[in-house]
């Protein structure tokens, strides 16, 4: 009996220390990690410059469209009653949604001690920051009168134009401002040990730059202890903030009087959609960075697989909430909301509605096949299409609803965004890519110290396992 118990205990110990599928080769040395990551700050592949300058060109086109709209008014972008939001608010929600993935990967998985996040969370956090900055631009673009941007900020003024605190738009400004501030702090703070590595390896003006940013980091036990607690605290604070931001964005819709929007399921639906599109975007950027900066050793196939599984799980949550939303309208008491739903499925935008359902709810099943999810080109295409589906979802929330409101005069079946709107939306993608690529060239997009920790702990686990196992007979 005792022997059986001991054997069971041995098996349990072995299982605990048994290395799982290798996310990263743990034979890689710490010095090599420094070399590989620091190399990305110097010599990227040609694709990097193609993406950077391509994005810059698209961004400049967006700037031209914005100047055109600024000079000629919002009417030049075909934004008239009832289509007053157009693509701007749809794309604004899309970018806010993209920002959630960084929080998920970095903060939630940090608290859950998911080791595999370590090589990839840094660029996800950067994605959060730049997505929010891009989303913020849409608030200004959508205003039309950009010079009066300060009206969106909740502050008292001397013109008696007191902000309406009961309006979700005021909550939005506060929430997005808080989220952006916290995200930037979280991103920067998590980078400090890596910035010290950059400082120690740089020369000239770069050394000064990294020296200032590394805030005197020396890697002392006192610094590490405070760093660990602070980072965890920030992660805990960031998660409810992220949830609140997209919930508040959802209330922009849910508290309004439009058919189909006035449902309580909107906040969780929006949060799930945000996580979903963000995860899909991380897969896209994972593949691009892996090739561009030669990160094959760090952004490995097992990690890609885990990302794909996570994306699939979230996609199913989103699909469920989407179906619940349809059911709530279908079985609800508002006949106009039901008509608006039927209009989406059969009217002018039917192709787009069916495409959304296909790309966002059916296509994720490709992530369940190991052969497909380990195929990088296929995953690149699938992740882009998933994100297209999620952008389309936001388009489907905004445009068909305005085109089929409570009054017959709103039934503008033929409305389609013109070149100004499309140009500004494309420009936002250029702006995001440009900033993201610039970040990856200036700052380490793989967390060196966390990868070192990962490798170190795996090595220790392997060594422990070897000491527990009896040595084989000679």
């Amino acid at each position: 009996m005792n022997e059986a118990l001991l054997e069971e205990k041995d098996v349990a110990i072995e299982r605990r220390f048994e290395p799982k599928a290798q996310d990263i080769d743990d034979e890689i040395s710490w010095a090599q990690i420094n070399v590989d990551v620091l190399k990305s700050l110097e010599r990227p592949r040609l694709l990097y410059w193609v993406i950077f300058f391509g994005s810059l060109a698209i961004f400049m086109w967006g700037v031209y469209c914005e100047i055109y709209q600024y000079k000629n008014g919002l009417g030049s972008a075909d934004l008239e009653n009832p289509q007053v939001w157009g693509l701007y608010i749809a794309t604004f929600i899309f970018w806010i949604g993209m920002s959630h993935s960084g929080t998920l990967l970095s903060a939630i998985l940090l608290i859950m001690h998911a080791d595999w996040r370590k090589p990839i969370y840094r660029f996800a956090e950067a994605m959060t920051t730049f997505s929010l900055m891009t989303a913020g631009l849409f608030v200004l673009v959508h205003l039309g009168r950009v010079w009066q941007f300060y009206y969106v900020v909740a502050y008292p003024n001397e013109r008696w134009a007191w902000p309406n605190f009961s309006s979700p738009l005021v909550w939005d400004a506060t929430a997005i401002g808080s989220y952006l501030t916290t995200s930037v702090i979280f991103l920067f703070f998590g980078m400090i040990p890596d910035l010290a590595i950059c400082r120690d390896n740089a020369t000239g003006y770069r050394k000064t730059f990294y020296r200032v940013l590394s805030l005197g980091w020396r890697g002392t036990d006192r610094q590490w202890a405070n760093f660990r607690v602070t980072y965890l605290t920030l992660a805990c604070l960031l998660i409810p903030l992220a949830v609140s931001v997209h919930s508040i964005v959802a209330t922009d819709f849910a508290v309004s009087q439009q058919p189909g929007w006035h449902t309580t399921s909107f906040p969780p639906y929006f949060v799930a959609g945000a996580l979903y599109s963000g995860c899909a975007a991380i897969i896209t950027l994972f593949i691009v960075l892996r090739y561009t900066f030669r990160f094959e050793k760090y952004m490995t196939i097992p990690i890609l697989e885990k990302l794909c599984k996570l994306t699939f799980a979230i996609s199913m949550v989103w699909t469920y909430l989407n179906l619940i939303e349809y059911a709530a309208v279908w079985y609800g008491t508002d006949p106009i909301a039901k008509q608006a739903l039927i209009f989406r499925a059969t009217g002018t935008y039917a192709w787009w509605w069916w495409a959304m359902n296909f790309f966002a709810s059916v296509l994720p099943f490709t992530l369940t096949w190991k052969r497909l999810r380990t195929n990088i080109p296929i995953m690149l295409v699938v992740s882009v299409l998933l994100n297209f589906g999620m952008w389309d979802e936001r388009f489907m929330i905004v445009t068909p609803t305005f085109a089929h409101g409570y009054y017959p005069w709103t039934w503008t079946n033929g409305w389609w965004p013109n070149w100004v709107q499309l140009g500004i939306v494309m420009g936002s993608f250029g702006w995001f890519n440009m900033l993201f690529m610039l970040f990856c060239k200036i700052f380490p997009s793989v967390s060196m110290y966390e990868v070192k920790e990962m490798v170190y702990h795996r090595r220790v686990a392997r060594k422990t396992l070897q000491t527990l196992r009896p040595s084989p007979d000679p």
Partner: protein
Amino acid sequence: MKKRSHILALFADFEEAAVTIAALREASIPGFKMQDVTLKSPIDHPECSAELGQRPVYIQIFSLLGAICGSGLGFLGISSAQANFLRQARGFFPIVPIPPDMVITYELFILGAVFFTITACLIMWRIYRVETDLYDVQISLDKIGILVEAEPKAIASLREIFTSHHALEISGSV
């Protein structure tokens, strides 16, 4: 105040560094105290830091304080400002709408905690002490450093302990 000297020894791994710290703890060297030992490493290693003794972290207290200040400022600031703008009072609507104010209070609750947390951490790091101690760039690469601040008379004994525990490099001022 007595003159203090620094000595820094580099080790190949955490095991060697831990053994050396244990040796420092056991040695009774005049002019040297255990709390003046600092471990410098490329990764966080709480197990090894535990050898150094209890070094408490007080960040959470500041986070709580920040959260209280943030939410207090959010709610009291906004609602008192609203109450001062009585000329905007509308029929049936409260001057201070509690539920919407709670949303902004919630955001500022978190923002206050974030600001206080980060400020506390920077103070705890002692970043105001700009590069007064010894440092080696190999620490950010793959070496573990043990830095000791002690009276000059203790330095020779410390150097001896480091040498006997296979320190890769020893540097310092006497």
